[in-house]
Structure formats: C-alpha cells, structure tokens
C-alpha cells in the first residue's frame, strides 16, 4: 500500500519557492506598463472636505491622474453591503470624513517615487468636528448588539442566586487595547481593466471570492467579469479577510488613468486602513463554592466599532461554553467611535475574552486558595453548556495533564513571590484555550492527466497556513499518488469556489472538498477501467478495486493493475476530471465542535526594571486529525507568538484629543521579535473525530493564541504578586506596580 501522506510531516511543497524568492506576492506580479498609485489620507477624524487642491500634484512630473471625490467615477454599488462581515469602504464617493487617514485622494504616476512625492502635494481644507477615539471616552453611548457568534446577551440560570451561593467571589475589570494585524506583506492590489466591463485584480487577500463578490457589486460588474488572483499571500490574520478601500481605489485609479495600476499601501496606512482588533473593556464577576465549583459567571464586554459599520469583538462567546456553570450571564455592547472599522483579528473574541476570563479564574483560584489548574479541571464542561449538545470530541483533560507534566506544574510552589534567580522573580501560570470549528461549503476539481499525474484545484488561499501542502497530502491519499505526482492549485477565482481562509476553517472546509472530489475522480477512473475491455480490471465490481501507487489494482490480485496514465490515455480524452461541491458534514448539527488546549507559561520578571521574559510556554492542543504535524506545529507556534505579543507588546495608540493613530509604524507598534520568543513546546494530543467531516479535521490556526496572554499574566502574578489587568504588560506598569 502507498504510505499515507496525511499525518506525515512532509516539507512544504511551496518551500523551495519561498526560500529562493520565487514565490510571487500580489505587488510582484509582472504587469506590463504598470503605474503606481498612492493614497492620500485625511488629517481630521470627523467632518467634511471643504476644498481639495490637486493642482500642484497634477503638475508634478510623471503624474497621470489625481483622483478625489470631486472627479472620481461614482459607483452606486459602493455603499451596498450584502453581508455582516463585509466591510464598508471609502472610495472617494463623497466629501465625508469618518476617521483619520481615510483616503481622500489617489495619485497615479509613472514611477513610485513620483507618485509618492506628488501625493504629499495634495492639500485639503476641512470642516472638522471633534472626533472621539476611545471607548472609555464615551461609555454612556454603549448599546447592546447581536454578535456574529450568537446573541448579544445570554442569561442562563439565576445569576444572583449563583453569586449568593458562592463562597468566594471576584469582581474585576480587564482592558485589552487596540491591536493591529500588521502582516509582513502590506496589502497590495494590481488592477487591470480589459475594456469597461472586465477587471483583473492581483490582490493580497485571504478571500479571493469575497473580493470578487464585493468588487463586482461595488463596480456594477457581473461577478464572472471580475477575476481575482493571489497565489501567495504574505500573512493575513484577519485583516485580509474582506477587501478594504484600497482595492476599490486601485480599480478606480486604473479606470481613471486608463492604465494598469499597482497600489501597495504603506506601513503607516496599515495602521488605519485595513482593520484592527478593537479595544475592549471587560467586567468579570465570578463565584465559586467551597467545593471549587463555579456557581456564577457574569461577563460584560464593551468594544468599539466605527460610526459607519459594525464589528463586534465577541469576547463573551467563550464564557458561554468553556466551563460547566449553571448561572451565566453575558452581554456585548458597542460604542461607536470616529475610527475605522475594526475586524476579525487572529482568534477574534477568544484571545481577548479568554484573557479576561482566564485571568479572572486565576484571581478566583488564589482568592479561594485553590490550585488554578484544579479549578479548571473541576469545572470541565462535559457537554456544551450553551447548547446542551455533546462535543463531537473533546480532549481538554488530556491536554491539561500533558502540558502540566511537561512544565512541571505540580512541582512549582503554590505560593506567589517565592521563586527567584538573582533579580529575576519567577512564576508559573496556566490558562485554557478553545476555538470553535466550522465547516463551510466548498467546491474542488480533481483532474487526472494522461501522464498519470493529477491536478487538483480549489479557489482557496494559502496565507502561510500550509494549504498548498496539506491539500496535496489529502489529494495524494485519496488518489494513492506520491506528492510529486500531484499539483494543487489555488488562489484564482477561475477555479472552483472555496471559502475564505479565515476562522481556521480552510483545512476543515476545503480539505473535505478536495478529498471528496478526488474520491469521485477515483470512482470515475474505476468506472472507466471496469467497463473498458482493454483494462486488466474489466468487469470487476467497484468495491473490488483499490488504488495504489498511481494505479488501480484488483484487491484480490494486486498484480492486476491499471495505471491511471493508461486509463486516461485509453479514454482518448485529454483528461478525466471531476468537480464536486461539498457541504458541511451532516453530523455537525448534532454536536458542538471545537478544538481545545491547555497552555502554561513560565516567566521571569526583573523586580526593579519591570522587564518580562517568557522562559517557557507549553501548549497541549487537540483539534481532531492533524494533516501535517510539521505545518500544524508551525501554526501553533505562530499562535503562541501572537499570544506573547498580546501579553507584552502590542498596543495601537490613538491620540486622545484627535483620534489619530500615534503608533504609525513597526518601530512604535511592537510585535515580538526573535529575542522575545524562547523555544516553545507544542504537544499534539491525538484525537479521532468521526463527526466533524470526512477527514476528521477541526482546524487549528487560531487555537494556540487564546489563553497565552492570560497564562503569561497569571505567571507574572505568581512571580511578583502584581496583577496587571490592562494589556500589554509593559515595564512601566510593573515598575509602578
């Protein structure tokens, strides 16, 4: 039998291209006579443009077009927003300014240097109004809103009675700041019109079909006439999940200048134009009885959104389902601000909500004199407390055990402030993590070529998640072909439609589609062979045939084999191809589905200088079948690094007077660097799940971020006795204690 590829940690199939510079990202596609567009941003946070002067910019050398709301082509569809997760964009359609750095003009020139300078020559006069940029400046306006992840509020059991029954309670408020995704590749779009009604976009995106749908709607084009291509995406983390203003502006600029236009936004623009994780204010009230059982949980979250669009950071979603507690009350509120719209950011809701919930549990444990890990174990939810459904699979208790053993949890002193090495205070912390697993419909095409090699296609994306590689593995097992005989293609709306690469559901959505399409192709090849008098397998029943090493073989006599190449060649067709649509697995209705994990941190804190170093992070995770342990481990590592950033570094700051972003680049917006990240321990807890989908995959791209910030904050408390409830935990906060 062919050795199975699924479960094997093979090297990435696109690895060679990525280490030789050969992977081509959106702005790197070679388009003849391409011009360069630069966005001019507003310098007020709220108001109207009174006048905009483009004469100097127009007169600058090399300038081909200067587009403002005065002269931009108008598209009624721009304001149309079909789905809740679509982001309203600003495309020079009116004179209204909704936030700082909002596009107010686009300059197109023959070279980048000329476009950049000409953009500085555009000046605007405004009627400015006061802009508010902080949730806490306008808490009174908070309103309750339904979240994409469930109802705005839930009230389970009797909260007051639960609180009254508690022996120990905590009532605390946590803050998480605005964070900005900052993938390494800034968003970029090359727009090329073919006539007035055909548009090709080379766009850095997590969602080629969403870009196609949105742009065709906005521009009034038929979707088939818009083609979106993205073979390599330099990171997304949510901010490339829907097209933002610049994609529309690239199309408009290309239309206005009559040339192909490349629009790569700048790193400062990345801080304002492509979404962010909103600031949250989270009030947690928890009660525990003398036996260590949670009696009540209340979780109120307020987060920010823009004046013109709605995004809810669903912090409370995790509180509704993570622990077995009879009395639970959660509320989500929003405050509208003069800021750009926030959006999904790696583990949206969970990373922020888990920081608060898992910190509060830690506070509760210390207050009640309980082991923080024991408190979590005792309140393990054996079924989904929110829906009452059983879990399709859940290995959280095993995760606790393996990770606790790995870090030596039981050997640490329970007392705070007891461990030190010189000036370093040392502490341990624990937290739980979870992420729901979803499966969206997807279509894939499997094609067998006359040389016996397969081409498998789906319009998904590889944003660094290993899609090229794991889909090749899935296809390889279904067709019994070695890696080298399969080419998996993605990133083009000319391919069958697959869902966006968001929500950690690519493997669990496109994976089954690829599997099913390949199995259907295999069935078709079997049918061809068994009906073909020239085949050694003629006349055999389909279920008497296996696939192995690029051929069909008779199960009873494996010497009777018909290579794929022979079957296709004899068919006299150029190829044998199957396209198949796959819906979410039917079992999913009967179960709650999610990945779970346990994360432990060991930190050291300089008692005088407040510097924190993460010594160790251990995470044990279970997320169904692991398609490729090597790429899975990488995703989990990355998620943990995001947790380190959330805990210690990341903070987008707006000026409180103007709502203008102050942290405008990667020198001021700190993400973890090499020196911040120790070797990290990843433990993959085996889990078989027959209910999630045909390949047993839950998805894990975001599973390892939630919990990390809490584990680190909890470890800092264990080390120092100082509880920081306001991320990030920077030296100033610890110095001021």
């Amino acid at each position, binding site marked *: 039998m062919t050795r199975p590829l699924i479960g094997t940690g093979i090297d990435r199939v696109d690895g060679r291209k990525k*280490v*030789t510079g050969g992977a081509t990202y959106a*702005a*790197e596609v070679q388009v003849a006579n391409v011009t360069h567009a630069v966005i001019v941003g507003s310098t007020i946070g709220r108001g109207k443009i009174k006048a905009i002067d483009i004469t100097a910019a127009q007169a600058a050398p090399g300038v081909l077009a200067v587009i403002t709301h005065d002269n931009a082509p108008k598209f009624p569809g721009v304001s149309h927003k079909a789905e809740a997760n679509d982001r309203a964009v600003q495309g020079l359609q009116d004179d209204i300014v909704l936030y700082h750095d909002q596009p107010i003009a686009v300059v197109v020139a023959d070279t980048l240097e000329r476009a950049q300078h000409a953009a500085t020559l555009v000046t605007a006069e405004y009627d400015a109004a006061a802009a508010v940029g902080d949730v806490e400046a306008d808490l009174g306006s908070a309103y309750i809103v339904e979240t994409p992840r469930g109802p705005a509020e839930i009230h389970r059991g009797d909260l007051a009675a639960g609180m009254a029954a508690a022996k120990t309670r905590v009532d605390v408020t946590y803050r998480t700041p605005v964070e900005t995704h900052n993938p*390494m590749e800034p968003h970029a779009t090359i727009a090329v019109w073919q006539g007035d009604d055909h548009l090709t976009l080379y766009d850095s995106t997590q969602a080629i079909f969403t870009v196609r749908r949105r742009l065709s709607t906005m521009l009034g084009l038929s979707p088939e006439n818009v083609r979106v291509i993205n073979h390599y995406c330099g990171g997304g983390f949510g901010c490339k999940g829907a097209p933002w203003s610049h994609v529309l502006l690239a199309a408009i600029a290309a239309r206005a200048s009559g040339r192909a236009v490349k629009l790569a936004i700048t790193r400062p623009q990345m801080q304002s134009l492509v979404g962010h994780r909103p600031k949250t204010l989270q009030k947690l009230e928890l009660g525990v009885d003398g036996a260590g059982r949670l009696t009540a949980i209340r979780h109120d979250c307020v987060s920010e959104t823009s004046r013109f669009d709605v995004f809810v950071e669903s912090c409370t979603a995790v509180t509704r389902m993570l622990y077995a507690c009879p009395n639970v009350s959660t509320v989500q509120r929003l405050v509208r601000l003069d800021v750009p719209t926030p959006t999904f950011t790696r583990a949206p809701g969970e990373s922020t909500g888990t920081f608060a919930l898992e910190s509060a549990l830690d506070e509760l444990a210390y207050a009640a004199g309980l082991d923080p890990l024991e408190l979590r174990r005792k309140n393990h939810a054996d079924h989904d407390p929110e829906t009452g459904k059983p879990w399709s699979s859940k290995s959280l208790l095993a995760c606790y055990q393996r990770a606790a053993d790995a870090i030596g949890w039981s050997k640490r002193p329970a007392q705070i402030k007891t461990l030190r090495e010189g000036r370093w205070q040392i502490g341990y912390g624990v937290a739980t993590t979870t992420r729901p697993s979803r499966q969206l419909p997807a279509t894939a095409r499997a094609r067998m070529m006359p040389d016996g090699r397969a081409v498998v296609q789906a319009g998904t994306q590889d944003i660094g998640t290993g899609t090229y590689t794991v889909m090749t593995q899935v296809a390889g097992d279904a067709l019994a072909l070695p890696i080298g005989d399969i080419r998996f293609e993605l990133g083009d709306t000319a391919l069958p439609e697959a869902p966006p690469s968001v929500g950690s559901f690519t493997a669990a959505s496109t994976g089954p589609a690829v599997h099913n399409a390949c199995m259907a192709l295999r069935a078709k090849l079997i049918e061809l062979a068994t009906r073909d008098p020239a085949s050694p397998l003629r006349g055999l029943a389909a279920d008497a045939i296996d696939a192995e090493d690029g051929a069909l073989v008779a199960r009873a006599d494996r010497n009777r084999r018909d290579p794929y190449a022979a079957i296709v060649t004899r068919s006299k067709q150029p190829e044998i191809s199957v396209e198949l649509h796959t819906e979410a697995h039917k079992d999913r209705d009967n179960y709650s589905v999610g990945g779970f994990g346990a994360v432990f941190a060991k930190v050291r804190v300089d008692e005088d200088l407040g510097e924190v170093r993460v010594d160790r992070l251990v995470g044990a995770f279970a997320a169904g079948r692991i398609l490729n342990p090597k790429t899975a481990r990488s995703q989990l590592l*990355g998620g943990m690094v995001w947790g380190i950033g959330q805990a210690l570094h990341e903070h987008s700051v707006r000026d409180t007077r103007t709502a203008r972003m102050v942290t405008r680049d990667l020198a001021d917006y700190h993400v973890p*660097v*090499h020196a911040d*990240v120790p*070797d990290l321990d990843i433990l993959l807890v085996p889990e078989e799940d027959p209910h999630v989908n045909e390949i047993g995959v839950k998805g894990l791209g975001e599973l390892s971020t939630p919990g990390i910030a809490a584990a680190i904050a909890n470890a800092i408390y264990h080390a120092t006795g100082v509880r920081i409830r306001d991320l990030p935990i920077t030296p100033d906060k610890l110095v001021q204690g």
Partner: protein
Amino acid sequence: MSSVETPIAVGMVAPSFVLHDDAQRPLSSSETRGRPWVLAFARGWTPGHDAGAIRAQLRGLGAILFVVSDAGVWSFRPDDDIELTAGPSRRLRREAAELAARWGVPSGEDGVFVVDRHGVVQLAHTPSGDLSATLASALAAAGREVIGLPPRPGITRRDWAVMSLVAGFGLVLLHGCRTPGSDRPAAPAPVAVKAGSDVDVVLRINGQDRRLRIDPRTSLLDALREHLALTGARKGCDHGQCGACTVLRDGHAVNACLTLAVAAEGAEITTIEGLARGEQLHPVQSQFIAHDAFQCGYCTSGQILAAVGLLREGRAKTDDEVRQQMSGNICRCGAYPNIVAAIQAARKEV
C-alpha cells in the same frame, strides 16, 4: 631586513619579522616556534570576520595566523582565546608596508603564505597567482598524503597533512575576506545629479553588473523590485523596521529600503535570487525548508540573508545570541523557534 632580497618562493626559509604597536608590544614571527603559521595580507579584513571559527580551526591545526589588514595586524594563536592586535599606527603601517613588500605583495593587494613548523615556506599565493589553482595544489598535496605518495624530503606525512589543511584554510580565509577587493575600484566615481534628473547607475548584483537609469530617490529595494524584477527582497515597512528587505552588501546584512540605489554603486549586492548555486540551495535555504522556518514566506528572504550574514560574521553562536542578532527580522507568522533551529543546523554546513 637584508638589502639583498630574494622573492619569497615555496621551499625557501621564511624571513622573520617583528611588528610593533604603539605600546611597543612586539608581534613577531618568533612566537611561531615549532608551529606552522599563515601570514595573510588581507586588505579588507576586519576582526569581526569569523574570529571564533578561525580560532577553532587553528586549534585543530596547531597553527598560528597573522593577518595584516587596513584595520591593523592580528595574531591568532591556537592555544589562546585572545588575539593580539595592533591598531594601524603610523609606525605599524610603515612596518606592515615593508613586510608586504618583502613578501612580494604590492601595496593594497592581498596575498597568503603558509610556513611549516621548520620555517620553510610551503605555499605562496600573491595577487598574480590564481587562487583556485593554488588551492587545488594545496588540496592535491593533502591528497598525496592520503594516497600514500612520498612527501617532500625533510617533512613527515603528518606535517604535510597539517600543512595542506592550513594552506587550504588560509586560502579560504583570504577568499572569504575579499570584501570590496582588489578587482574593483575602492570607491565609486564622483558624480553630481541635479534634482529632477535621472542618474545612470551600475549595480553589482549577484555577481553581475546591472545598468539602470533611475530617479536618484529610488531605493535599492525599489531598484530591485520595480526595475530589475528581483522581487525576492520584500517591502514590509520601507523604514528599516522589519528586515524583510534584507540583502547582503559586501557580505553584511543591510536594509535595502534605507539604501539609495545610487549610493550602492561599487558594492557587491547579494539577493535571495543569488544565494543558491544553480539547483543547489544554500545550506540556510535547505534548513529553512527542513525546519519549516516560515509560513507565509514574506519575511523569509530577509531572514535567510540575515542568517547568512550572521553565520559569515560568526559572532552569534548560542541560541540567545542568534535571537538577539536576528531581531531585526520580524516574522509575524511567528516562525522564530524554527528559524533559530534552521540557522543552528545550517551552521554545521557552511
């Protein structure tokens, strides 16, 4: 020094020398007693280069190395962790120039000589010589030992083996430190370009001269990406804050985004596209694949080139040192642990 000087040639007894630094501390060939030694005239060499690796090599060979460069004179000993140094004082410069002349190395050129433990010159390489041919003969000498051919009279087989290894090492060292070497002008020619005019530049990229007519505002990064279709150098921030644009300039990692292309004339630029030798990946490249040291891949070119620079410079050794020195290369996917592992694995191969 004798006034009747014969040119240094293989087989002759090496002349002794003494150099003095400001503190009159002598640096002398007499300290070589009973050991083989290498005398390298390497103009562009600075002590940042591979000092640790050099010491490890010397320890294995029991040899002493003298390097005479523009920055001073160094003596590396196998049994000592501290190299003796002398800064380029006026006196030392004079003495070094005389030494070079005595050994037949023209001013400003490179050369390397290997002397065996009996004080006999066993290998001489001067700018007129063909480096690879000399290296080949050194390796052939080593091979002679292996296949059992009799060595020259007066030296043992072991002497020869050590000698040949020292010679090979010396040559590799010399080759490695040919920064803006003698085959190119030391500095690019003076130029003045009026604001608004384009400028003709010649950039030496991956061993090839590339001629461009560009706006003087063009960064090296945009010259590569927008004018030469070498898009492997990535633009992540355009302000030296992320490292995605890292290229090697004369062997050292730099930010191409903060380099004006016109100011890169005269430098040897290596981009990710120039790292592999044909189909054969550089060890750092292949270890990045093996360790899955990337996800989205956008920072990868910069990480790899920074790592190549790091290994070449040779200072960062422990994981923590590697992390510190690599911290100018941000990976938002968080592949850091795998990157460090890949670099440490590649260290054994480069």
